């Protein structure tokens, strides 16, 4: 009975992440379009750039996380496809370890920056959007990405499950 609960939780988490990214993406599209059209009709929307930067960060963080959960990171598969399954698994594990080290570096670096700017009231110039919460959100997303990569170490890729990145746009 444990497994369906786990997969439901996983599905809900995944849906929540994707939904957050999709909503911020749709908002970005609407806001940037409104700003561009408004400017030509004498109705500029001041501060659009600052709001869009915050929205884009959420979109990018959700995108990186969902790409990782779905094992959709791009790679050149020409040589690995010729390898026997055990060697292919070794290559996959090596790729995950590189990813974990890279993510750890990103998490440490971004946490370091939060520590440096903590208490300085870092905010955007025009609208005063606080930056530290965005930094914390980004660190949280990177930590989850690293954690997901670590989980993948124990779960081999189901065959032909991750090969579609080659036919995706772009």
């Amino acid at each position, binding site marked *: 009975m444990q497994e369906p609960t786990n997969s439901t939780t996983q599905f809900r988490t995944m849906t929540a992440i*994707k939904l957050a990214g999709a909503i911020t993406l749709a908002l970005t599209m609407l806001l940037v379009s409104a700003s561009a059209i408004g400017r030509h009709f004498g109705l500029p929307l001041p501060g659009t750039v600052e709001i869009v930067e*915050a929205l*884009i960060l959420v979109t990018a963080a959700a995108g990186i996380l*969902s790409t990782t959960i779905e094992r959709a990171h791009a790679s050149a598969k*020409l040589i690995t496809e010729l390898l026997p399954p055990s060697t292919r698994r070794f290559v996959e594990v090596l790729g995950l370890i590189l990813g974990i*080290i890279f993510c750890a570096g990103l998490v440490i670096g*971004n946490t370091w920056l939060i520590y440096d700017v903590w208490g300085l009231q870092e905010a955007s110039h025009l609208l005063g959007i606080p930056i530290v919460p965005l930094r914390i959100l980004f660190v949280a997303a990177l930590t989850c990405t690293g954690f997901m990569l670590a989980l993948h170490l124990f779960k081999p890729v189901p065959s032909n499950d991750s090969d579609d990145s*080659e036919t995706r746009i772009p």
Partner: protein
Amino acid sequence: MMEFISPEMLGVIGFITLLVLLAGGMPIGFALGFVGFVGLAVLIDFEAAVIKLGVISFSMTSHYELGVIPLYLLMAHVCFASGASRDFFNAASRLWGHHRGGLAIASVGGCAGFGAVSGSSLATAATMGLVSIPEMRAKNYSPKLATGSVAAGGTVGSLIPPSGMLIVLGILTEQSIGKLFAAGILPGVTQALFYVVAIAIICRINPTLAPTVAKASWKEKIQALSKIGDLSLLIFIVIGGLLIGWFTPTESGAIGALGAITLAMVRKRLTMRAFIDSLYETLRTAGMLYVIIIGAFIFSTFISASGLASDISDWILNGQQSTIGVMLGILLVYFILGMFLDGMAMMALTIPIFYPIIQSLGISGIWFGILVVRAIEIALITPPVGMNAFVIHGISKDIPLKTIFAGIGPFLIADLFHVVLLLSLPILSLWLPSLM
């Protein structure tokens, strides 16, 4: 460590390590970031390296200009979901289908049209292949010509704006994406024309490759054209608006995505489910690209700090190599790398080294960018990687890869002439950007 190895040697070791990791199938973004991170830690120190990682990753993901990536991707995914590729092929086949080889020409034309919304050669080849190959085969076209024209035609999508490759190149080299888009138009159009000439020549030599088909009536032609009229207008506004300075690239992407969604809904081609799927798919592709871009910038910082690129520049300057000689050398490297790496990996690996060299030699970065994308696209149809050929094989499983690659042959010859044209006439790439 630095007492034993010079910074330049460390750069060389980093480059070779990255090449091995990428060829070995490691995720591109992770491999770039890992090598760059470790390289910086050894070259400078751990503290500086992690801070650099923090600064680069946060600025890349919260940069207004980089919003262009998900917005253009969304436009492409919506057009993809609403079946725009069929409309483009139908219009082109009604116009040119009755000529000998006309359906193959229509495939190339359809690829150019769909390339203007998809921005990706793989996606263009895949979607156009699903529509045009069955129709060509039903009309007794040779499988060689049918598959070869779509596999090669797909590569036009990477030059016709908005192009995913040009966006990433613009970000990596910090060049104007708008100017790169403008620069891609004439090379993209001439590439399509070269393919049309290639089809006409091979059909004249061997008429059995492509039997003639009945001419469409004017009513059919107008009907087919009316189906792409609104989408063509959207492309015109999105690209034209960018070129004449109405919109920034990010704004142009947003207007394009919003316009594509509106058109698809008005035409009842987009269900809510398909729209949500387009958003999710965009998110996934954008996530993949963001990791590659962060990794590429970290690797680029490492290569720059090692002094490797400036050493190579000095060596080239001292040897007094000609511009054409340097460009030929760079293109040769891409053709070789293309045998075992895909486009994005090649670009991320080489741009940090080649671009500073190009700058120090005073060669136009825009011209260089167009030639790089062209070289990468040629690698997409040459064996053994030839990704477009594999995509087409995935669609038409009964046609052997050997046949597809044989069908690509004449288009590769056309590509060779086209590269020579781009090399000898830089104005072809530089004229439109100079008007901006």
